[in-house]
């Protein structure tokens, strides 16, 4: 272990460049502000449709995650072996997300088709429908639950 530390730290006393840190900070801050601005514009005008906006949010989130891992956690500056031992298992997330989200979608369709109680619950209004028609539209299943949806 001591030799190991020697190899990684013989040249560790060279200066650590702090400029990329601040650049990363500004990138993360700007992305967060853009997300906030988009959400506010959507609330006021309803302009970028919610499903488009969701896609944008996911892309921006992945960009933020990339910058945190690459710069703050310094992974971009490590050797390829280390990057791959982490990146390859992380690919499981692609299957993980797709499989479970699609399963949720299928379950909603099945319940809307075969579970009258579920549909009745959804059609019983206890409050006026919100101004945000878009997210409901995104999660809206078959036409059976469509009436009363729009304001």
């Amino acid at each position: 272990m001591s030799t190991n530390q020697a190899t990684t730290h013989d040249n560790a006393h060279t200066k650590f460049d702090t400029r990329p840190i601040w650049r990363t900070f500004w990138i993360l801050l700007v992305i967060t502000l853009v997300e906030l601005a988009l959400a506010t514009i959507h609330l006021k005008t309803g302009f970028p449709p919610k499903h488009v906006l969701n896609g944008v949010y996911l892309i921006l989130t992945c960009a933020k995650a990339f910058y945190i891992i690459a710069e703050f956690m310094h992974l971009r500056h490590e050797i390829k072996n280390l990057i791959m031992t982490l990146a390859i298992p992380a690919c499981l997330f692609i299957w993980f997300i797709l499989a479970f989200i699609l399963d949720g979608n299928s379950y909603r369709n099945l319940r809307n088709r075969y579970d009258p109680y579920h549909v009745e619950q959804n059609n019983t209004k206890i409050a006026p429908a919100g101004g945000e028609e878009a997210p409901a539209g995104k999660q809206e299943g078959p036409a059976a639950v469509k009436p009363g949806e729009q304001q």
Partner: protein
Amino acid sequence: MAQAIPAGTKWWSGGKSPFNVEYGKLMMWYFLMSDAFTFGAFLISYGTIRMSSNSWPDPNEAFRAFPGMGEMHLPLVFVSLMTFILIMSSVTMVLAVAAGHSGDRKKVTFYMILTIIGGLAFLSCQAWEWTHLFGEGAWWGRNPFPNVNGSKASTNFTNFFFTITGFHGFHVFSGVVVNCIMLIKNLRGDFERKGHYLMIEKAGLYWHFVDLVWVFVFTCFYLL
């Protein structure tokens, strides 16, 4: 570090770490990997349940408050502030690691203190938010917020919210404790005696991971 490696180094020929990092740091990476899957499981189960529901409460209605602003409608503002605090404390953490690289003990102490303050600020914000939501009648098993389409919402929304932000908050809390230990060790001069500040780097990895998870929690609960 990577730039000092001669080209054509045979990483797998034995006698050295094929990952060119110290053992503890590699294990911290693997721990974070497993923790990422834990959080992934939480967030994906949230996504699945939300996907299987016909409608879901509007986050802009549920999370609209800001301390001291009364009934003003300010969706996302408070949580953006929390995001900013966490990113800022991540920056001070990297600066502490950078100071450790140049062996500057005083600077490490300074930046570690700033990082701990950032962590405590985030936890305070979360405590306020939880208290506020509890005051509105939200808790595990209780959901006062109706669905967007006006139907009665199940308690899934609050259950997932409190479980996942609570689990994340507990990680932040552990991170603050770890950072405090690092600060004390640094004040005692342990790292200076060892000749390196690798422990600060490992604590730093954990701290950035907490920030990373928050990015996803922020998107899943407040934006989508």
